[in-house]
């Protein structure tokens, strides 16, 4: 018999964890001498009060969609992919190479090939830790952490020594050609008669991200591969007994995960910056962890959590602009969300399970 109904596990526990995180964040804001109510007001206004705010919120959310899905896919196979940051960086590199060196006639074609470049590079960066985990038993958490740092060094080298245009000062590539620049939400929505902020970075990648959610949902729950991935995640011995090859499944899962992280580059590199800069990922790879945990590794949950974190990031930027609260507040909130929904899950879960058991006894 289940200890508690499914809705409690899927909705109640994340919501309580989130409230706990919010409560402590409010305390932190109080302690540094600001008003939490005012802060929340500013954040809501700044992130959701205008199409400009929404444009940024959705832009950040798109980044987190990809990295969140990546962490979620890996988690279904029982793998903790902490290397999203590096995979997204290398994905950006692949994308930049495609956009810079292939002349595209139109952005739609550019988008397809750029996505291929970014996805393949991201997947390749995840392939080595995946192989080492599958074949040699090296812990994937440690190897992916190491690969984040190696990716940063690779990116740094490529930008400074190879891709930087001659004579340029800052380490970044040249701007991508006009035909390899993606339309923003403003350009997409204008023909439909919807007024959307011109300067916000949200772009067509949002729809790619939403499509990725649907594809991942179908993959995990409605394909044989998804079944294999989940079986491996539940019990490796069980999976082997069912004739599933752990080596093959780990490899494929991590390739998908790395590919998804790589795809993030369409949004931040091709859609926003329109060139590759050094710190393009801005920690989005790590936020994927919080997003996946919060979303319970389900694409719809990931979608909601990505919007939430998009809101937090844009709201946090606004806070830093108008108050004395630095944008690092968001890092604290993110940490608390990871802490409560991930590490301290049992602290929330056990009392709630007890309450449900007690209620059930009363009913009987």
């Amino acid at each position: 018999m289940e200890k508690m109904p499914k809705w409690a596990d899927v909705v109640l526990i994340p919501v309580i964890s989130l409230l706990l995180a919010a409560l402590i964040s409010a305390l932190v804001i109080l302690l540094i001498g600001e008003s939490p109510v005012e802060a929340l007001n500013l954040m809501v206004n700044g992130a959701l009060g205008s199409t400009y705010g929404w444009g940024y919120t959705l832009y950040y959310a798109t980044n987190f969609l990809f990295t969140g899905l990546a962490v979620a896919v890996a988690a279904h196979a029982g793998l903790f992919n902490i290397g999203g940051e590096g995979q997204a960086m290398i994905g950006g590199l692949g994308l930049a190479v495609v956009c810079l060196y292939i002349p595209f006639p139109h952005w739609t074609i550019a988008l397809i090939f750029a996505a291929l470049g970014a996805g393949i590079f991201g997947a390749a960066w995840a392939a080595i830790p995946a192989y080492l985990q599958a074949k040699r038993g090296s812990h994937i958490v440690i190897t992916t952490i190491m690969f984040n740092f190696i990716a940063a060094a690779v990116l740094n080298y490529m930008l400074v020594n190879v891709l930087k245009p001659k004579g340029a000062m800052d380490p970044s590539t040249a701007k991508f050609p006009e035909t390899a620049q993606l339309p923003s939400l403003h350009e997409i929505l204008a023909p439909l008669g919807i007024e959307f902020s011109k300067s916000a970075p949200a772009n067509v990648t949002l729809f790619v991200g939403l499509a990725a959610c649907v594809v991942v949902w179908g993959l995990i729950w409605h394909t044989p591969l998804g079944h294999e991935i989940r079986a491996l995640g539940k019990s490796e011995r069980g999976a082997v007994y069912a004739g599933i090859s752990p080596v093959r499944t780990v490899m494929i899962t991590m390739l998908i995960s790395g590919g998804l992280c790589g795809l993030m580059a369409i949004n931040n590199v091709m859609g926003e910056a329109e060139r590759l800069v050094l710190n393009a990922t801005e920690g989005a790879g790590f936020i994927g962890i919080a997003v996946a945990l919060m979303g319970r590794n389900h694409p719809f949950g990931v979608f909601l959590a990505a919007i939430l974190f998009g809101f937090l990031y844009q709201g946090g930027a606004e806070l830093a602009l108008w108050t004395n609260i630095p944008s690092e507040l968001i890092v604290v909130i993110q940490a608390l969300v990871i802490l409560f929904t991930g590490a301290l899950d049992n602290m929330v879960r056990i009392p709630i399970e007890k309450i449900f058991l007690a209620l059930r006894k009363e009913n009987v």
Partner: protein
Amino acid sequence: MDFLTLIQVLDSSMRMATPLLLACLAGLFSERAGIFDIGLEGKMLMAAFFSAAVAAITGNVWLGLLAGIASSLALSGLHGLASITFRGNQLISGVALNFLASGLTVLIAQSWFQQGGRTPSLMTAGRFNGIELPFAIGPADAEAAGRPLSEMIKEASMVQQLYSELISGHSILVYVSLLAVPLTWWVLFRTRFGLRLRAVGENPAAVDTAGISVQGLRFAAVGICGLLCGIAGAYLATGLQAGFVKEMTSGRGYIALAALIFAKWRPWHALGACLLFGLLQAVALRFQSIQLGGFTIPVQVMDALPYILTVVILAGFVGKAIPPRAGGDPYVKER
């Protein structure tokens, strides 16, 4: 490269290796007891901030050190609560603590000092300064002779150069970190506590059967880890540099983790690994790129080398790194 340059690079490596070594030994205690800790970085960062902040406010570096250790211990307590008491995922807990430290330090720094997330620069009394060993040439001698220190060192004999530059003149925490190596070895391999601590990382059920508290031992290990990370962070902010700046650990916690794997969870090897990684950092700091027989090694290779070496070790191409067997598993007492 002449002898003196070599000595200076080694001297710098020693200083770069110190925080790595302390954090590496911290991780050693924790992981030997079966608690993975990828939150070394966060604990160091937290300690770096609080040590610099308290040292800046009180002007006393020892109070700063204590504050640093206390803040690192607080994070350790949280890690213990999550991963020992509530049997949560130790890796996720570590990730959360790293973010917590990274955000809180800037938040509090901004609120206390209003200098864009940093502490004011520390004056002499607020820092751990170099200790002059007997017979070494130091700033005091230079002042007495009325000549620049570098000139006097240059004229000294090789033995004196080695002694004055490399062995003498470090802050007390550098010597503490070196002493921590034999101490760690002795505690882990020559005391009953150490035996139990290692046992709890290999087979907690056996320790439990013997009537010893698994949770207690693991909390002790996590506590020692916090203490050592606290010293490491304090050294960063009050010894190596004069004050806290945002994200000043810059991945050192992860390099320490890499060194721990490189050393295969053994104290003396940890010293070797940290000195090697310290040397890499010192070389990267001093030379932008290195000429090696016609090849130019770019500085980014030096940056990435500790991580690449660790991956190679992890892959088992050069000896196999086998972590403590019960590492990462929360212990569920049978009922």
